[in-house]
């Protein structure tokens, strides 16, 4: 089954803020995503600190391709497909480690850490020397690039350079981690599986409407340190009239900065579908454990006056989320239409005092990840939201992302396009709209055009 452009346009309406539920379970749509998004887009592979020494490798995922990201003897980084040029076996079965060479355990073809085919058992005896080893190395990923320590790869040789792909919005997103110091990844990538469509996991990262409800129990005093940076700021609760629990009792929410009408938001919309959504740095909802980096003159110059105001969650389209509370990257890796793997990378500044580092690591384990007091309550919502789109009748109902629709005036300033408002769904809607443009299989030039923000959402 293939989709023509008009059918794809029918799936997402930017005007109405509606999304067709078929995009969450339809296997044909998933296949097309693999081809038109994950085989083309730049994708985050790992951070350079994870592979510091020659031979250090980390196994990443690009679409359904398993990729070895390997530090070379000259300090450069290569990425190659983890599949033997002979008959396909994986040449490395560890998630990470250090290698002097990669031996395929099927028939013994042996590759250097640069991917070159060095040895073939029986090269003289059986092949009579007729196999050109130089033509059968591990296939390199079409392009690999490093932005401030973040290693990205794309399967598309024609993709624009990484910095151009990221654009001002994507770079700002990654800068919110990179500018905090001499950053390194703490050993241990949390990986777990949620039975949801990857887009539901992605759209949630912009969703500042859900924390007060989904995470009501986590915001209970004594569960987390206070997340209200402006302790004494007047927090006006949102209206909850008619909002009752199954027991009939009204829903009582802990008073906290996440809730309320002082929750000023800024949503940044970028080309190719990148976006940032969440509180401004002066909003009651903004919180960071260590915001000192924002006072740094280097930060102010690098981010510019608009960038400095952004305190929300960036997503590098399609699946790379950078967090704010403390620097982490969360990948949402599609496994099949209804299974998504979540990978958490946690960053600290190498020069941080030991105590602060330990605090950050403890908080990272405590907030996000499968046991995180926040994230443990997310998965079931996403799994059930995905599962309910399977029913023929349930599927006819649209997903709604229309909060604030028609009122989102796009301000273009300092190279960024932004919308200022209270809690909204602009970030999610922009992601879905851009997703639809990617799904049309446009040229890179056309895609950039189609995902350049207009005047209003």
């Amino acid at each position, binding site marked *: 089954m293939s989709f023509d452009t008009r059918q794809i346009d029918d799936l997402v309406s930017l005007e109405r803020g509606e999304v067709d539920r078929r995009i969450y379970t339809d296997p044909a749509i998933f296949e097309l995503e693999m081809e038109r998004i994950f085989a083309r887009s730049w994708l985050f592979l790992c951070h350079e600190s994870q592979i510091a020494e020659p031979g250090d490798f980390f196994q990443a995922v690009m679409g359904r391709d398993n990729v070895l990201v390997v530090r070379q003897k000259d300090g450069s980084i290569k990425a190659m497909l983890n599949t033997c040029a002979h008959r396909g076996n994986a040449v490395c079965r560890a998630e990470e480690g250090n290698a002097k060479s990669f031996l395929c355990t099927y028939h013994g073809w042996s590759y250097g850490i640069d991917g070159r085919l060095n040895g073939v058992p029986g090269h003289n005896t059986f092949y009579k020397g007729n196999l050109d080893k130089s033509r059968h190395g591990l296939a390199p990923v079409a392009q690999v690039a490093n932005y401030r320590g973040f290693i990205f790869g794309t399967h598309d040789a024609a993709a624009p350079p990484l910095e151009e792909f990221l654009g001002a919005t994507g770079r700002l997103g990654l800068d919110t981690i990179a500018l905090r110091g001499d950053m390194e990844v703490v050993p241990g990538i949390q990986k777990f599986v949620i039975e949801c469509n990857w887009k539901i996991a992605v759209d949630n990262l912009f969703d500042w409407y859900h924390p007060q409800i989904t995470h009501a129990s986590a915001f209970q005093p004594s569960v987390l340190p206070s997340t209200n940076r402006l302790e004494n700021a007047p927090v006006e609760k949102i209206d909850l009239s008619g909002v009752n629990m199954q027991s009939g009792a009204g829903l009582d929410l802990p008073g906290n900065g996440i809730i309320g009408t002082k929750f000023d938001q800024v949503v940044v919309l970028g080309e190719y579908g990148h976006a940032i959504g969440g509180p401004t740095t002066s909003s009651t909802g903004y919180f960071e454990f260590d915001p000192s980096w924002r006072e740094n003159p280097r930060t102010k110059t690098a981010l510019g006056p608009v960038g400095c105001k952004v305190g929300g969650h960036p997503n590098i389209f399609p699946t790379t989320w950078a967090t704010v509370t403390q620097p982490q990257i969360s990948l949402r890796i599609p496994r099949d239409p209804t299974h998504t793997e979540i990978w958490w990378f946690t960053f600290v500044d190498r020069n941080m005092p030991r105590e602060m580092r330990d605090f950050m690591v*403890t908080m990272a384990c405590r907030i996000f990840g499968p046991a995180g007091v926040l994230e443990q309550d997310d998965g079931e919502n996403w799994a059930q939201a995905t599962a309910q789109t399977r029913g023929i009748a349930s599927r006819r109902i649209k997903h709604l992302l229309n909060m604030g629709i028609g009122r989102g005036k796009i301000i273009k300033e300092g190279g960024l396009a932004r919308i200022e408002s209270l809690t909204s769904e602009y970030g999610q809607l922009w992601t879905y709209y851009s997703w639809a443009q990617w799904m049309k299989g446009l040229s890179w030039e056309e895609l950039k055009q189609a995902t350049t923000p207009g005047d209003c959402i």
Partner: protein
Amino acid sequence: MSNHSQMISRDERIAAMLLHYEVERFYYDEAALLDAHRYDEWLALFTDDAHYFMPIRRTRTQREMDKEFTKPGEMAFFNDDKILLAGRVAKLKTGRSWAEDPPSRTRHLITNVRIVKDDGRTLEVESNFHVYRTRLNSEETSWIGLRRDLLRRTDGSFQIADRKIYLEQTVLLSRNLSNFF
């Protein structure tokens, strides 16, 4: 081994059996509290300075097995002190802890209990666990692994001063860890 066991007296062997029995009973009672969702009583089984740690495990080659599990100070699934554990218990009691409402059905099976060290004050004990969970109508999770505990003797019983939980999974095959081990 058999030489050794012949050398120690019958009384000593009986004392070892009794100790083993007490430790096992402690674990069975603990498991019963968890399966009955009696979290406050479960929390009281931990010392105030307790550390509760479930490392991340990684598929690595045999040569790098020393780096299979993350260590304290690195990332983990659980890295809690008693205050954090108490926070988790408080969360479960808010009535808005949605991942546990409707509550998960769990059964903690504790086996292969081995007292590996005893200095008179503290015991080092290993046990295997199978935590079986079902949620809603179709979700089923099995977590199997090893616990390595430091049990401090208190009058007549024990308190857990340190618990390390080693799961037999690298990529966690479940959507969350909203239960205790």
